[in-house]
Protein backbone atom coordinates (compact mmCIF):
# COMPACT_ATOMS: atom_id res chain seq x y z
CA UNK A 1 0.00 0.00 0.00
CA UNK A 2 1.64 3.30 -1.02
CA UNK A 3 1.63 6.31 1.29
CA UNK A 4 2.69 9.90 1.03
CA UNK A 5 3.59 12.51 3.67
CA UNK A 6 1.09 15.36 3.97
CA UNK A 7 1.03 17.92 6.79
CA UNK A 8 3.70 15.91 8.60
CA UNK A 9 1.79 12.60 8.56
CA UNK A 10 1.69 9.61 6.24
CA UNK A 11 -1.50 9.20 4.20
CA UNK A 12 -2.19 5.69 2.88
CA UNK A 13 -3.82 5.48 -0.55
CA UNK A 14 -4.35 3.20 -3.51
CA UNK A 15 -5.05 3.78 -7.19
CA UNK A 16 -7.26 1.53 -9.33
CA UNK A 17 -7.87 1.55 -13.07
CA UNK A 18 -6.18 2.79 -16.17
CA UNK A 19 -3.84 5.78 -15.87
CA UNK A 20 -5.64 7.37 -18.84
CA UNK A 21 -9.03 7.14 -17.13
CA UNK A 22 -11.07 10.08 -15.83
CA UNK A 23 -9.76 10.76 -12.29
CA UNK A 24 -12.19 10.02 -9.47
CA UNK A 25 -11.53 10.07 -5.71
CA UNK A 26 -13.86 8.17 -3.39
CA UNK A 27 -14.35 9.23 0.22
CA UNK A 28 -16.61 6.98 2.30
CA UNK A 29 -18.56 7.78 5.48
CA UNK A 30 -17.61 7.62 9.13
CA UNK A 31 -13.86 7.57 9.71
CA UNK A 32 -13.79 4.53 7.42
CA UNK A 33 -10.77 3.41 5.45
CA UNK A 34 -10.79 3.70 1.66
CA UNK A 35 -10.95 -0.10 1.63
CA UNK A 36 -14.64 0.19 2.39
CA UNK A 37 -15.33 1.55 -1.08
CA UNK A 38 -12.88 -0.67 -2.95
CA UNK A 39 -15.67 -2.61 -4.66
CA UNK A 40 -17.26 0.66 -5.79
CA UNK A 41 -13.80 1.73 -7.00
CA UNK A 42 -13.39 -1.47 -8.99
CA UNK A 43 -16.74 -0.98 -10.69
CA UNK A 44 -15.82 2.60 -11.59
CA UNK A 45 -12.41 1.46 -12.87
CA UNK A 46 -14.17 -1.10 -15.07
CA UNK A 47 -16.31 1.79 -16.32
CA UNK A 48 -13.26 3.77 -17.44
CA UNK A 49 -12.28 5.75 -14.33
CA UNK A 50 -8.90 6.10 -12.65
CA UNK A 51 -9.86 5.77 -8.98
CA UNK A 52 -8.11 7.09 -5.89
CA UNK A 53 -8.92 5.37 -2.60
CA UNK A 54 -7.46 6.93 0.54
CA UNK A 55 -7.45 6.52 4.29
CA UNK A 56 -8.23 9.85 5.87
CA UNK A 57 -6.07 10.87 8.83
CA UNK A 58 -7.81 9.49 11.96
CA UNK A 59 -9.28 6.72 9.81
CA UNK A 60 -7.72 3.53 8.47
CA UNK A 61 -3.94 3.16 8.18
CA UNK A 62 -2.97 6.82 7.86
CA UNK A 63 -1.23 8.81 10.58
CA UNK A 64 -3.57 10.57 12.97
CA UNK A 65 -3.81 14.39 12.85
CA UNK A 66 -5.15 16.71 15.53
CA UNK A 67 -4.51 20.42 15.20
CA UNK A 68 -6.28 23.72 15.68
CA UNK A 69 -5.09 24.85 12.24
CA UNK A 70 -8.29 23.34 10.80
CA UNK A 71 -11.72 24.44 12.05
CA UNK A 72 -13.16 20.92 11.79
CA UNK A 73 -11.99 17.39 11.10
CA UNK A 74 -13.62 17.54 7.65
CA UNK A 75 -11.61 20.69 6.85
CA UNK A 76 -8.44 18.80 7.81
CA UNK A 77 -9.51 15.97 5.52
CA UNK A 78 -10.28 18.37 2.64
CA UNK A 79 -6.84 19.99 2.97
CA UNK A 80 -5.22 16.55 3.03
CA UNK A 81 -7.19 15.45 -0.03
CA UNK A 82 -6.28 18.45 -2.15
CA UNK A 83 -2.60 17.97 -1.33
CA UNK A 84 -2.88 14.27 -2.14
CA UNK A 85 -4.46 15.00 -5.54
CA UNK A 86 -1.71 17.53 -6.31
CA UNK A 87 1.12 15.24 -5.15
CA UNK A 88 -0.21 12.53 -7.47
CA UNK A 89 -0.24 15.06 -10.30
CA UNK A 90 -3.88 14.33 -11.10
CA UNK A 91 -5.36 17.76 -11.80
CA UNK A 92 -9.10 18.32 -11.56
CA UNK A 93 -10.75 15.18 -10.20
CA UNK A 94 -14.32 14.05 -9.74
CA UNK A 95 -14.88 14.12 -5.97
CA UNK A 96 -17.36 11.45 -4.93
CA UNK A 97 -18.30 10.95 -1.33
CA UNK A 98 -21.06 9.86 1.02
CA UNK A 99 -21.93 10.92 4.55
CA UNK A 100 -18.76 12.30 6.22
CA UNK A 101 -17.06 11.74 2.85
CA UNK A 102 -19.73 13.95 1.29
CA UNK A 103 -18.85 16.70 3.76
CA UNK A 104 -15.14 16.35 2.91
CA UNK A 105 -15.92 16.44 -0.82
CA UNK A 106 -18.10 19.57 -0.43
CA UNK A 107 -15.42 21.42 1.56
CA UNK A 108 -12.76 20.39 -0.95
CA UNK A 109 -14.91 21.72 -3.82
CA UNK A 110 -15.48 25.00 -1.93
CA UNK A 111 -11.91 25.62 -0.86
CA UNK A 112 -9.93 23.98 -3.65
CA UNK A 113 -11.84 24.43 -6.92
CA UNK A 114 -8.63 23.84 -8.87
CA UNK A 115 -8.59 20.14 -7.91
CA UNK A 116 -12.34 19.70 -8.43
CA UNK A 117 -13.68 18.52 -11.78
CA UNK A 118 -17.15 17.44 -10.63
CA UNK A 119 -18.87 16.70 -7.33
CA UNK A 120 -21.00 13.63 -6.63
CA UNK A 121 -22.64 13.32 -3.22
CA UNK A 122 -24.80 10.85 -1.37
CA UNK A 123 -26.03 10.55 2.22
CA UNK A 124 -25.29 14.14 3.25
CA UNK A 125 -25.59 14.53 7.03
CA UNK A 126 -27.32 17.57 8.52
CA UNK A 127 -30.07 18.72 10.84
CA UNK A 128 -30.38 18.58 14.61
CA UNK A 129 -30.40 14.86 15.34
CA UNK A 130 -27.71 13.97 12.84
CA UNK A 131 -25.32 16.72 13.93
CA UNK A 132 -25.79 15.95 17.61
CA UNK A 133 -25.21 12.29 16.93
CA UNK A 134 -22.03 13.05 14.94
CA UNK A 135 -20.74 15.08 17.88
CA UNK A 136 -21.30 12.02 20.02
CA UNK A 137 -19.61 9.64 17.61
CA UNK A 138 -16.55 11.71 16.73
CA UNK A 139 -15.88 14.08 19.58
CA UNK A 140 -17.54 13.82 22.97
CA UNK A 141 -16.23 10.43 24.08
CA UNK A 142 -12.71 11.56 23.25
CA UNK A 143 -12.98 14.74 25.31
CA UNK A 144 -14.51 13.04 28.33
CA UNK A 145 -12.00 10.18 28.20
CA UNK A 146 -9.03 12.55 27.88
CA UNK A 147 -10.30 14.63 30.78
CA UNK A 148 -10.79 11.60 32.99
CA UNK A 149 -7.82 9.44 32.13
CA UNK A 150 -5.45 11.48 29.96
CA UNK A 151 -3.98 10.39 26.62
CA UNK A 152 -3.16 6.99 28.08
CA UNK A 153 -6.91 6.38 28.38
CA UNK A 154 -7.51 7.78 24.88
CA UNK A 155 -5.20 5.22 23.25
CA UNK A 156 -7.14 2.48 24.99
CA UNK A 157 -10.43 3.51 23.36
CA UNK A 158 -11.48 0.88 20.77
CA UNK A 159 -11.30 3.31 17.87
CA UNK A 160 -7.75 4.53 18.59
CA UNK A 161 -6.60 1.06 19.56
CA UNK A 162 -7.64 -0.02 16.09
CA UNK A 163 -5.83 2.95 14.49
CA UNK A 164 -2.70 1.87 16.38
CA UNK A 165 -3.12 -1.77 15.32
CA UNK A 166 -3.39 -0.61 11.72
CA UNK A 167 -0.43 1.77 12.06
CA UNK A 168 1.84 1.48 15.12
CA UNK A 169 3.21 5.03 14.55
CA UNK A 170 -0.13 6.29 15.82
CA UNK A 171 0.76 5.12 19.33
CA UNK A 172 3.56 7.68 19.61
CA UNK A 173 1.66 10.31 17.65
CA UNK A 174 -1.32 10.17 20.00
CA UNK A 175 0.79 10.10 23.17
CA UNK A 176 2.81 13.07 21.90
CA UNK A 177 -0.30 15.31 21.99
CA UNK A 178 -0.59 17.09 25.35
CA UNK A 179 -3.93 16.21 26.95
CA UNK A 180 -4.98 19.88 27.15
CA UNK A 181 -4.20 20.43 23.50
CA UNK A 182 -6.17 17.33 22.47
CA UNK A 183 -9.19 18.58 24.44
CA UNK A 184 -8.77 22.05 22.95
CA UNK A 185 -8.66 20.77 19.36
CA UNK A 186 -11.68 18.57 19.89
CA UNK A 187 -13.67 21.38 21.51
CA UNK A 188 -12.95 23.46 18.42
CA UNK A 189 -14.01 20.60 16.14
CA UNK A 190 -17.09 20.06 18.34
CA UNK A 191 -18.33 23.55 17.45
CA UNK A 192 -18.82 22.44 13.85
CA UNK A 193 -21.44 19.92 14.99
CA UNK A 194 -23.54 22.36 17.03
CA UNK A 195 -26.72 22.76 14.95
CA UNK A 196 -26.47 26.33 13.70
CA UNK A 197 -28.88 28.43 11.66
CA UNK A 198 -27.26 29.15 8.31
CA UNK A 199 -25.31 25.89 8.21
CA UNK A 200 -27.09 23.18 6.22
CA UNK A 201 -24.14 20.89 6.85
CA UNK A 202 -21.95 20.91 9.98
CA UNK A 203 -19.23 23.57 10.05
CA UNK A 204 -19.91 25.10 6.61
CA UNK A 205 -21.63 28.48 6.27
CA UNK A 206 -24.37 28.31 3.66
CA UNK A 207 -23.01 31.22 1.63
CA UNK A 208 -19.79 29.29 0.95
CA UNK A 209 -21.68 26.82 -1.24
CA UNK A 210 -21.86 29.59 -3.87
CA UNK A 211 -18.15 29.02 -4.44
CA UNK A 212 -18.82 25.59 -5.91
CA UNK A 213 -18.63 25.92 -9.67
CA UNK A 214 -18.09 22.24 -10.50
CA UNK A 215 -21.05 20.33 -11.96
CA UNK A 216 -22.72 18.62 -9.00
CA UNK A 217 -25.05 15.67 -8.59
CA UNK A 218 -26.67 14.64 -5.32
CA UNK A 219 -28.38 11.32 -4.67
CA UNK A 220 -31.83 11.91 -3.23
CA UNK A 221 -32.02 10.91 0.45
CA UNK A 222 -34.69 8.65 1.80
CA UNK A 223 -37.40 10.60 3.61
CA UNK A 224 -37.15 8.29 6.62
CA UNK A 225 -33.37 8.67 6.90
CA UNK A 226 -32.63 10.69 10.08
CA UNK A 227 -28.85 10.53 9.65
CA UNK A 228 -28.95 11.99 6.13
CA UNK A 229 -32.25 13.83 5.96
CA UNK A 230 -34.03 14.58 2.73
CA UNK A 231 -34.26 18.23 3.79
CA UNK A 232 -30.46 18.49 4.02
CA UNK A 233 -30.14 16.97 0.57
CA UNK A 234 -32.63 19.49 -0.83
CA UNK A 235 -30.96 22.38 1.02
CA UNK A 236 -27.59 21.51 -0.47
CA UNK A 237 -29.27 21.18 -3.87
CA UNK A 238 -30.70 24.69 -3.42
CA UNK A 239 -27.35 26.09 -2.27
CA UNK A 240 -25.23 24.71 -5.15
CA UNK A 241 -26.34 26.50 -8.27
CA UNK A 242 -27.01 24.15 -11.16
CA UNK A 243 -26.74 21.01 -9.03
CA UNK A 244 -28.99 18.09 -9.90
CA UNK A 245 -30.78 15.58 -7.71
CA UNK A 246 -30.54 12.01 -8.98
CA UNK A 247 -32.73 9.12 -7.91
CA UNK A 248 -31.45 6.87 -5.22
CA UNK A 249 -30.17 3.47 -6.37
CA UNK A 250 -31.31 2.04 -3.03
CA UNK A 251 -34.68 0.77 -1.89
CA UNK A 252 -36.59 2.83 0.68
CA UNK A 253 -35.25 2.09 4.18
CA UNK A 254 -32.07 0.52 2.75
CA UNK A 255 -29.91 2.84 4.87
CA UNK A 256 -31.85 2.24 8.07
CA UNK A 257 -31.65 -1.51 7.58
CA UNK A 258 -27.94 -1.44 6.75
CA UNK A 259 -27.31 0.77 9.79
CA UNK A 260 -29.21 -1.60 12.08
CA UNK A 261 -27.34 -4.57 10.59
CA UNK A 262 -23.99 -2.92 11.16
CA UNK A 263 -24.83 -2.30 14.80
CA UNK A 264 -25.57 -5.98 15.25
CA UNK A 265 -22.47 -7.24 13.45
CA UNK A 266 -20.12 -4.41 14.49
CA UNK A 267 -19.27 -3.87 10.82
CA UNK A 268 -19.58 -0.65 8.87
CA UNK A 269 -23.01 0.32 7.49
CA UNK A 270 -21.77 1.21 4.02
CA UNK A 271 -22.06 -2.15 2.31
CA UNK A 272 -24.49 -0.48 -0.08
CA UNK A 273 -21.98 1.87 -1.58
CA UNK A 274 -21.15 -0.10 -4.73
CA UNK A 275 -24.73 0.56 -5.89
CA UNK A 276 -23.89 4.18 -6.72
CA UNK A 277 -21.47 3.06 -9.47
CA UNK A 278 -23.92 3.41 -12.41
CA UNK A 279 -24.93 7.05 -11.73
CA UNK A 280 -21.28 8.01 -11.10
CA UNK A 281 -20.16 6.39 -14.37
CA UNK A 282 -22.92 8.20 -16.22
CA UNK A 283 -21.94 11.49 -14.54
CA UNK A 284 -18.25 11.20 -15.35
CA UNK A 285 -19.01 10.49 -19.02
CA UNK A 286 -21.36 13.51 -19.33
CA UNK A 287 -19.59 16.57 -20.72
Amino acid sequence: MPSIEINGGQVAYDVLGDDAGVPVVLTPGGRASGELVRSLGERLAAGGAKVLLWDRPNGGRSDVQFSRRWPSEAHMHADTLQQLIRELGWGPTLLAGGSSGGRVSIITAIEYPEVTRKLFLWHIAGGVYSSMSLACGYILGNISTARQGGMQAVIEMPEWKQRIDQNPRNHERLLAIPQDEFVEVLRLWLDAYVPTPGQAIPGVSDELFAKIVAPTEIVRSDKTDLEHPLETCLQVNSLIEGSRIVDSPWAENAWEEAFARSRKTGGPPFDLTADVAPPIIEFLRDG
Partner: protein
Amino acid sequence: MPSIEIQGGEVVYDIVGAADGQPIVVSTGGRFDMDVPGLRPLAERLAQDGMRVLLWDRPNCGASDVQFWGASESHMRAAVLAELLARLGMAPAVIAGGSSGARDSIITAMDHPEVASRLIVWSTSGGIYALMRLANVYVVPTLEALNMGGIDAALELAHWSDRIKANPRNHDRMLELGTDGLRDVMHRWLGAYVPKPGQLIPGVLDEDLGRIAAPTMIIRGGELDLDHPKRTSLELQCLIGGSVLVDPPWPEDGWERSLEAAYRGEGHPFDSWPLVAEPILRFSQQSSQKTSAINFVDGVAVPTPRTTGDMT
Protein backbone atom coordinates in the same frame (compact mmCIF):
# COMPACT_ATOMS: atom_id res chain seq x y z
CA MET B 1 -40.06 3.27 50.44
CA PRO B 2 -43.27 5.33 50.15
CA SER B 3 -44.62 6.44 46.81
CA ILE B 4 -47.41 8.66 45.59
CA GLU B 5 -49.16 8.92 42.23
CA ILE B 6 -48.50 12.13 40.37
CA GLN B 7 -49.39 12.88 36.74
CA GLY B 8 -50.36 9.25 36.31
CA GLY B 9 -47.11 7.76 37.60
CA GLU B 10 -45.84 6.58 40.98
CA VAL B 11 -43.07 8.74 42.45
CA VAL B 12 -40.89 7.09 45.08
CA TYR B 13 -39.66 9.39 47.85
CA ASP B 14 -38.20 9.49 51.32
CA ILE B 15 -38.25 12.12 54.06
CA VAL B 16 -35.39 12.67 56.48
CA GLY B 17 -35.68 14.89 59.57
CA ALA B 18 -38.24 16.08 62.08
CA ALA B 19 -41.84 16.76 61.01
CA ASP B 20 -41.60 20.38 62.16
CA GLY B 21 -38.32 21.08 60.38
CA GLN B 22 -37.90 23.68 57.63
CA PRO B 23 -38.87 21.86 54.43
CA ILE B 24 -36.27 21.37 51.73
CA VAL B 25 -36.07 19.07 48.69
CA VAL B 26 -32.68 18.05 47.36
CA SER B 27 -32.55 16.76 43.76
CA THR B 28 -29.52 14.87 42.61
CA GLY B 29 -27.71 14.98 39.27
CA GLY B 30 -27.46 12.76 36.22
CA ARG B 31 -30.27 10.24 36.06
CA PHE B 32 -29.16 8.98 39.46
CA ASP B 33 -31.56 7.85 42.15
CA MET B 34 -31.84 9.09 45.72
CA ASP B 35 -29.26 6.54 46.92
CA VAL B 36 -26.47 8.01 44.82
CA PRO B 37 -23.34 8.51 46.96
CA GLY B 38 -23.21 11.86 48.70
CA LEU B 39 -26.93 12.61 48.74
CA ARG B 40 -28.10 10.90 51.92
CA PRO B 41 -25.15 12.12 54.02
CA LEU B 42 -26.04 15.63 52.81
CA ALA B 43 -29.70 15.11 53.78
CA GLU B 44 -28.74 13.77 57.21
CA ARG B 45 -26.48 16.75 57.84
CA LEU B 46 -29.32 19.13 56.94
CA ALA B 47 -31.75 17.16 59.14
CA GLN B 48 -29.35 17.40 62.08
CA ASP B 49 -29.63 21.17 61.85
CA GLY B 50 -33.40 21.11 61.89
CA MET B 51 -34.41 20.72 58.26
CA ARG B 52 -37.03 18.29 56.95
CA VAL B 53 -35.49 16.87 53.80
CA LEU B 54 -37.39 15.36 50.89
CA LEU B 55 -35.43 12.98 48.67
CA TRP B 56 -37.09 11.59 45.57
CA ASP B 57 -36.45 9.31 42.64
CA ARG B 58 -37.20 11.66 39.80
CA PRO B 59 -39.23 10.04 37.01
CA ASN B 60 -36.81 8.14 34.71
CA CYS B 61 -34.51 7.54 37.70
CA GLY B 62 -34.51 4.89 40.40
CA ALA B 63 -37.73 3.05 41.15
CA SER B 64 -40.26 5.72 40.14
CA ASP B 65 -42.50 5.25 37.13
CA VAL B 66 -41.02 6.58 33.91
CA GLN B 67 -42.63 9.72 32.48
CA PHE B 68 -42.22 11.10 28.99
CA TRP B 69 -43.87 14.46 28.42
CA GLY B 70 -43.10 18.16 28.79
CA ALA B 71 -40.90 20.65 26.98
CA SER B 72 -37.81 18.98 28.41
CA GLU B 73 -37.09 16.24 30.91
CA SER B 74 -36.48 18.92 33.53
CA HIS B 75 -39.77 20.69 32.77
CA MET B 76 -41.54 17.38 33.34
CA ARG B 77 -39.70 16.81 36.61
CA ALA B 78 -40.37 20.35 37.80
CA ALA B 79 -44.12 19.84 37.34
CA VAL B 80 -43.94 16.50 39.17
CA LEU B 81 -41.88 18.00 42.00
CA ALA B 82 -44.26 20.93 42.47
CA GLU B 83 -47.18 18.55 42.87
CA LEU B 84 -45.18 16.19 45.09
CA LEU B 85 -44.31 19.02 47.50
CA ALA B 86 -47.91 20.21 47.61
CA ARG B 87 -49.31 16.73 48.18
CA LEU B 88 -46.84 16.03 50.97
CA GLY B 89 -47.72 19.33 52.64
CA MET B 90 -44.11 20.46 52.31
CA ALA B 91 -44.73 23.51 50.12
CA PRO B 92 -43.27 26.04 50.08
CA ALA B 93 -39.87 24.44 50.47
CA VAL B 94 -36.26 25.28 49.80
CA ILE B 95 -35.72 23.88 46.30
CA ALA B 96 -32.14 22.65 46.11
CA GLY B 97 -30.24 20.59 43.59
CA GLY B 98 -27.03 20.01 41.69
CA SER B 99 -26.32 19.41 38.00
CA SER B 100 -29.47 17.97 36.38
CA GLY B 101 -31.10 18.50 39.80
CA ALA B 102 -30.13 22.18 39.48
CA ARG B 103 -31.99 22.39 36.16
CA ASP B 104 -35.02 20.68 37.71
CA SER B 105 -34.88 23.09 40.66
CA ILE B 106 -34.53 26.24 38.56
CA ILE B 107 -37.54 25.33 36.43
CA THR B 108 -39.54 24.42 39.55
CA ALA B 109 -38.90 27.85 41.07
CA MET B 110 -39.65 29.53 37.74
CA ASP B 111 -42.81 27.67 36.71
CA HIS B 112 -44.21 26.84 40.15
CA PRO B 113 -43.29 29.80 42.38
CA GLU B 114 -45.90 28.81 45.00
CA VAL B 115 -43.82 25.80 46.09
CA ALA B 116 -40.45 27.57 46.32
CA SER B 117 -39.39 29.44 49.46
CA ARG B 118 -35.79 29.59 48.27
CA LEU B 119 -33.75 28.25 45.39
CA ILE B 120 -30.26 26.83 45.87
CA VAL B 121 -28.29 25.37 42.98
CA TRP B 122 -24.81 24.04 42.37
CA SER B 123 -22.96 22.38 39.49
CA THR B 124 -25.18 24.06 36.89
CA SER B 125 -24.50 22.68 33.41
CA GLY B 126 -24.10 25.01 30.47
CA GLY B 127 -22.06 25.84 27.42
CA ILE B 128 -21.47 23.92 24.23
CA TYR B 129 -19.52 20.93 25.51
CA ALA B 130 -21.79 20.25 28.48
CA LEU B 131 -25.05 20.60 26.55
CA MET B 132 -23.90 18.48 23.62
CA ARG B 133 -22.78 15.88 26.11
CA LEU B 134 -26.12 15.92 27.94
CA ALA B 135 -27.92 15.37 24.65
CA ASN B 136 -25.67 12.49 23.91
CA VAL B 137 -26.09 10.91 27.32
CA TYR B 138 -29.82 11.43 27.85
CA VAL B 139 -31.34 11.40 24.38
CA VAL B 140 -29.24 10.24 21.42
CA PRO B 141 -28.72 6.60 22.48
CA THR B 142 -32.48 6.17 22.95
CA LEU B 143 -33.23 7.71 19.55
CA GLU B 144 -30.56 5.59 17.92
CA ALA B 145 -32.05 2.44 19.45
CA LEU B 146 -35.57 3.47 18.40
CA ASN B 147 -34.42 4.07 14.85
CA MET B 148 -32.70 0.72 14.64
CA GLY B 149 -34.96 -1.61 16.55
CA GLY B 150 -38.00 0.32 17.73
CA ILE B 151 -39.24 0.38 21.31
CA ASP B 152 -37.93 -3.15 21.99
CA ALA B 153 -34.38 -2.02 21.29
CA ALA B 154 -34.87 1.03 23.52
CA LEU B 155 -36.05 -1.21 26.38
CA GLU B 156 -32.78 -3.15 26.11
CA LEU B 157 -30.60 -0.10 26.70
CA ALA B 158 -28.89 -0.42 30.08
CA HIS B 159 -30.54 2.68 31.55
CA TRP B 160 -34.09 1.63 30.64
CA SER B 161 -33.62 -2.05 31.45
CA ASP B 162 -32.39 -0.94 34.89
CA ARG B 163 -35.56 1.15 35.32
CA ILE B 164 -37.62 -1.93 34.51
CA LYS B 165 -35.62 -4.07 36.95
CA ALA B 166 -36.19 -1.48 39.65
CA ASN B 167 -39.88 -1.17 38.77
CA PRO B 168 -41.48 -3.78 36.45
CA ARG B 169 -44.41 -1.42 35.67
CA ASN B 170 -41.98 0.59 33.57
CA HIS B 171 -41.89 -2.15 30.94
CA ASP B 172 -45.54 -1.68 30.05
CA ARG B 173 -45.39 2.08 30.45
CA MET B 174 -42.67 2.33 27.81
CA LEU B 175 -44.25 -0.28 25.57
CA GLU B 176 -47.53 1.58 25.69
CA LEU B 177 -45.83 4.78 24.57
CA GLY B 178 -44.40 2.87 21.62
CA THR B 179 -41.69 3.63 19.10
CA ASP B 180 -43.28 6.74 17.62
CA GLY B 181 -44.51 8.11 20.94
CA LEU B 182 -41.10 7.86 22.59
CA ARG B 183 -39.35 9.14 19.47
CA ASP B 184 -41.50 12.29 19.40
CA VAL B 185 -40.69 13.09 23.02
CA MET B 186 -37.00 12.33 22.57
CA HIS B 187 -36.76 14.68 19.59
CA ARG B 188 -38.42 17.42 21.63
CA TRP B 189 -36.11 16.84 24.57
CA LEU B 190 -33.12 16.75 22.22
CA GLY B 191 -34.08 20.19 20.94
CA ALA B 192 -33.74 21.60 24.45
CA TYR B 193 -30.08 20.56 24.60
CA VAL B 194 -29.10 22.16 21.30
CA PRO B 195 -26.91 25.10 22.39
CA LYS B 196 -28.77 28.29 21.51
CA PRO B 197 -28.23 32.01 22.01
CA GLY B 198 -30.54 33.26 24.73
CA GLN B 199 -30.89 29.92 26.50
CA LEU B 200 -28.39 29.56 29.29
CA ILE B 201 -30.37 26.67 30.77
CA PRO B 202 -31.46 24.07 28.18
CA GLY B 203 -34.98 24.76 26.97
CA VAL B 204 -35.44 27.88 29.14
CA LEU B 205 -35.57 31.37 27.62
CA ASP B 206 -33.17 33.62 29.52
CA GLU B 207 -35.82 36.24 30.17
CA ASP B 208 -38.07 33.69 31.87
CA LEU B 209 -35.45 33.21 34.58
CA GLY B 210 -36.30 36.77 35.63
CA ARG B 211 -39.63 35.44 36.88
CA ILE B 212 -37.92 33.59 39.72
CA ALA B 213 -39.01 35.45 42.82
CA ALA B 214 -37.64 33.12 45.52
CA PRO B 215 -34.39 34.25 47.13
CA THR B 216 -31.72 32.36 45.21
CA MET B 217 -28.22 31.20 46.01
CA ILE B 218 -25.94 29.93 43.26
CA ILE B 219 -22.85 27.96 44.16
CA ARG B 220 -20.24 28.94 41.62
CA GLY B 221 -18.81 26.44 39.13
CA GLY B 222 -15.10 25.64 39.36
CA GLU B 223 -12.76 27.62 37.15
CA LEU B 224 -11.91 24.81 34.71
CA ASP B 225 -15.06 22.73 35.12
CA LEU B 226 -16.27 22.07 31.56
CA ASP B 227 -19.41 20.25 32.72
CA HIS B 228 -20.63 22.97 35.11
CA PRO B 229 -18.74 26.04 33.96
CA LYS B 230 -17.99 29.01 36.21
CA ARG B 231 -19.29 31.16 33.36
CA THR B 232 -22.72 29.48 33.47
CA SER B 233 -23.06 30.18 37.20
CA LEU B 234 -22.08 33.84 36.71
CA GLU B 235 -24.55 34.28 33.87
CA LEU B 236 -27.24 32.62 35.98
CA GLN B 237 -26.60 35.13 38.74
CA CYS B 238 -27.08 37.96 36.22
CA LEU B 239 -30.36 36.43 35.00
CA ILE B 240 -31.98 35.74 38.40
CA GLY B 241 -32.57 39.13 39.95
CA GLY B 242 -31.18 39.53 43.46
CA SER B 243 -29.52 36.11 43.46
CA VAL B 244 -26.31 35.62 45.34
CA LEU B 245 -23.24 33.80 44.16
CA VAL B 246 -21.02 31.93 46.60
CA ASP B 247 -17.71 30.17 46.17
CA PRO B 248 -17.83 26.40 45.87
CA PRO B 249 -17.31 24.54 49.17
CA TRP B 250 -14.86 22.18 47.42
CA PRO B 251 -11.49 22.92 45.82
CA GLU B 252 -11.54 24.93 42.59
CA ASP B 253 -10.60 21.78 40.63
CA GLY B 254 -12.72 19.45 42.79
CA TRP B 255 -14.93 18.27 39.95
CA GLU B 256 -12.07 17.48 37.54
CA ARG B 257 -10.15 15.57 40.20
CA SER B 258 -13.28 13.64 41.17
CA LEU B 259 -13.83 12.62 37.53
CA GLU B 260 -10.27 11.35 37.33
CA ALA B 261 -10.72 9.47 40.59
CA ALA B 262 -13.99 7.92 39.37
CA TYR B 263 -12.20 6.80 36.20
CA ARG B 264 -9.62 5.04 38.40
CA GLY B 265 -12.51 3.39 40.24
CA GLU B 266 -12.05 5.52 43.36
CA GLY B 267 -15.28 7.02 44.60
CA HIS B 268 -18.16 8.88 43.01
CA PRO B 269 -18.08 12.46 41.70
CA PHE B 270 -20.90 13.36 44.14
CA ASP B 271 -18.96 12.17 47.20
CA SER B 272 -18.22 15.79 48.09
CA TRP B 273 -21.88 16.86 48.01
CA PRO B 274 -22.26 16.87 51.83
CA LEU B 275 -20.02 19.95 51.70
CA VAL B 276 -22.91 22.01 50.32
CA ALA B 277 -24.74 21.52 53.65
CA GLU B 278 -22.97 24.54 55.18
CA PRO B 279 -23.91 27.09 52.51
CA ILE B 280 -27.44 25.61 52.31
CA LEU B 281 -27.96 25.97 56.07
CA ARG B 282 -26.48 29.46 56.13
CA PHE B 283 -28.72 30.67 53.29
CA SER B 284 -31.88 28.84 54.37
CA GLN B 285 -31.74 30.21 57.87
CA GLN B 286 -31.35 33.82 56.78
CA SER B 287 -34.37 36.10 56.75
CA SER B 288 -36.22 35.78 53.48
CA GLN B 289 -35.61 39.41 52.52
CA LYS B 290 -33.49 39.35 49.44
CA THR B 291 -31.84 42.58 50.51
CA SER B 292 -30.28 40.82 53.46
CA ALA B 293 -28.62 38.20 51.30
CA ILE B 294 -24.89 37.97 51.60
CA ASN B 295 -22.58 37.40 48.69
CA PHE B 296 -19.53 35.28 49.33
CA VAL B 297 -17.36 36.03 46.35
CA ASP B 298 -13.73 35.00 46.46
CA GLY B 299 -14.23 34.17 50.11
CA VAL B 300 -15.20 37.73 51.02
CA ALA B 301 -18.69 38.46 52.32
CA VAL B 302 -20.28 41.41 50.56
CA PRO B 303 -23.87 42.61 50.93
CA THR B 304 -25.98 42.49 47.79
CA PRO B 305 -27.94 45.70 47.46
CA ARG B 306 -31.26 45.19 45.76
CA THR B 307 -33.60 47.89 44.60
CA THR B 308 -37.26 47.05 44.47
CA GLY B 309 -37.27 48.57 40.99
CA ASP B 310 -36.09 45.41 39.29
CA MET B 311 -39.12 43.50 40.47
CA THR B 312 -41.55 45.82 38.74
